[in-house]
């Protein structure tokens, strides 16, 4: 329900709202940082931060950042979409950073480039799950 609301609003408005969080933060105005629209670029600009350039993730103190490369759970088209919309464990939702178009593009890229699932994830897929 929250995701639906969020998807309707522009990215800029939401960036401004982060100023209202009480946590320590830089405290500037709305950011001019733009995320590209193409799947590979979205991966490099966002996902790679944690899942790494080779999509193999990495390990930490008794815990790990999961690999996206060769990950059989991604066979289910909706698996990644649900995580992008709702978050999972330590990973936050990305509905305030990525548009449905960007989510579809990057999921399609991750599933086909780092795995062998060729059917694309579409904006309709994203919207269907966001509406749940």
């Amino acid at each position: 329900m929250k995701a639906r609301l969020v998807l309707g609003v522009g990215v800029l408005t939401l960036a401004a709202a982060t100023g209202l969080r009480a946590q320590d933060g830089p405290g500037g105005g709305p950011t001019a940082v733009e995320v590209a629209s193409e799947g590979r670029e979205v991966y490099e600009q966002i996902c790679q931060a944690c899942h790494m350039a080779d999509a193999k993730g990495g390990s930490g103190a008794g815990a790990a950042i999961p690999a996206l490369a060769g990950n059989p759970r991604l066979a289910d088209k909706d698996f990644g979409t649900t995580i992008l919309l709702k978050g999972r464990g330590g990973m936050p939702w990305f509905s305030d950073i990525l548009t449905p178009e960007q989510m579809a593009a990057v999921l399609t890229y991750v599933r086909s480039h780092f795995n062998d699932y060729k059917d694309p994830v579409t904006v309709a897929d994203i919207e269907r799950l966001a509406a749940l």
Partner: protein
Amino acid sequence: MTDPSFPQSRRDLFKMIGAAGGGAAMYQAMTTLGHAAETQFTGPPRLSGAPKGSSVVVLGAGLAGMLAAYELMQAGYKVTVLEYQDRPGGRNYTIRGGDKIVEVGGATQTCTFAPGNYVNPGPWRIPHHHRTLLHYCKAFGVELEPFIQMNHNAFVHRSKAFGGKPQRYRDVAVDFKGHVAELMGKALNAGSLDDKLTKEDKDKLLVAMREWGVLDKNMSYTSNLAVSGQRGYDKAPGGGVGGAPTPSQVNGLSDVLSSNVWTQMGFYFNYVMQTTMFQPKGGMDMIGKAFAKRLGKMIRYNAKVTEITQNETGVTAVWEDTKTGQKASTSAAWMVNTIPLPVLNQIPMQVGPKLQAAIKAVPFNGQLKIGIEMKRRFWEDDYSIYGGHSFTDQAIGLISYPNNNMFSDGPAVLLGAFANGAGAFQLTGMTPEQRIEAALAQGSVFHPAEYRKEFISGVSLAWSRVPWIMGCTSRWTEESRAAHYQNLCAIDGRIVLAGEHATYYGGWMEGSMLSALDAVERIHKKASAA
């Protein structure tokens, strides 16, 4: 002669109210008298009388874990702290020359800052109302110095405002105020607000707008010496024959609006961002070190906890010595667990489904900071900027100037980035070298002639890739609070969670400490009743 039934001091009064009405009544009374509304801290817990031979194992030697350990030790418990890293403090962390940073994924940096120089990659500022933290700093002799939060002479930069040229905060803030006051005056004089105000209040408001906005006799915001008295002069007042100043030129309303300066003005109004703020002398980790000194051998470093079990009589943490690979376990009657949730949610732990669900329900933000060492303090020498922040809408978010050793010669470290949101992800995804290059390119906007020329080295900390947390700070929503917060804090058998994720004051050391105090008080109560 004193009347024993009459309180001698406010403190005595609070004690009496506390005795009569309990903690809540005391808290309320303190608030009424203008104390304490700022924090729920009412003093250290002063626990005593631990059941004979009772023990506690604490997971994590961050501030929450170490405060819990310290107060439980005072109460007489036998305490062991298990810490993954080879240093105390957790997020209370300072990077200095010689320090090595290894990220998840393997990227490695070694800081080469000159002796005495440092960057605080996590916490860096302490509000004056964080009484718990300030209490323990004072008690443990941690020397604090002012953190320059607000600097009118630092810059505000937006890529699409003023042709991308940074403006002094003072100039745009004064202009914003002036233009808004002028417009308000116009609306008032046009009678647009007559149905909202009494005649008397309208007159007062007109005076207020004229004085506050430094408007001229026509109620206009214009370039003149009175306005320059706030936003600075073209030619500053001097001495002798050429002493007369000339005014600076105010910016037009649209330019000022495009600068978004109200977000900075609003930022400084935030309760947690208000002056006075502090930092420990020599680096933020002085606080963690002060706690560790009091705990001594109680802390077992290089201990990676991998599993947690419990039964009716006690709790066991299974861990691995990261230096030798040897497995071991530590058992105790009780456990205070402060491992950050992104790690904890992957460690098998014998607790009920409600706590399990809560641990999985809280994602973490991923901020990033970069420290840059420069050959000299050009921001001081060439720009008259002493501490404070210059804000930008680029990925780096801001640059921030050092608060210590002002006017000194030799290399100094500035904060070259404090990125969040998409900007933080972009920078985190880069190699350490690429991050420094991006920080130099973006930071140059403020100091174009000096930024690259004076650069020596840089070091970055990408919190999403820090192995022992894989994130920065917890991200609760109203929904997750309602569904999970009480479950996260509730004691599960022999285990209680504490830390930055178990407080309404997330993202602040104060919150971690308040959470720890609350946890040990509840554990002590339960242990005493058992």
